[in-house]
């Protein structure tokens, strides 16, 4: 069974333009292609139940 894990998506004006795991590389490449101010990053969750209780 394929185990799905996280992925990052680079958005340009809310439209996906890159997807993958190496965020740094994707971000640098996106900045060369698109206006910096139009870009955003999204973390894509793998399917599952998200329980986020964080204690220090």
């Amino acid at each position, binding site marked *: 069974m394929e185990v799905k*894990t*996280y992925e*990052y998506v680079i*958005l340009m004006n*809310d439209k996906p333009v890159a997807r993958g*795991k*190496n*965020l*740094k590389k994707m*971000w640098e490449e996106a900045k060369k292609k698109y206006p*910096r101010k139009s*870009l*955003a*990053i*999204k*973390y894509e*969750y793998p*399917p*599952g*139940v*998200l*329980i*986020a*209780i*964080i*204690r*220090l």
Partner: protein
Amino acid sequence: MPSFDYKEQESLILGKILRPLIDIEIFSEIEKDWIKIKEVLADTGADISIIPKSTGELILHDVTKGKIQEIKGIVPFARLIVYIHELKFRINGREFELPVAIADSFDVPPILGRVKGLDLFDVNFKKGQKVNIEF
């Protein structure tokens, strides 16, 4: 007042579900500019805000310079190493500085937690449909 629609995502147990995800910006020391981060979980169960290492690497020259700490969740025995940094966040033009745990892992979702984060605002989770944030 910023308002964010819950976003549909998939749960293996519950099928399609809606989650309270909001858009933020984080100031990057490297780029001397704000980086937009979409769909950050607004989580009142989280004491501290957290971002994955990959995002931290776009913001700070050296993530490991923060105070090293071990954090826990609900899962028994599960531990996560994080580096605590003071970062500048912005929501809808409103800036604030808060302690953020940068995970020593790429596989951690970005979370806006309570301390100096959600606690600064009146946050209204509207019937599983919208998150309204009042400054």
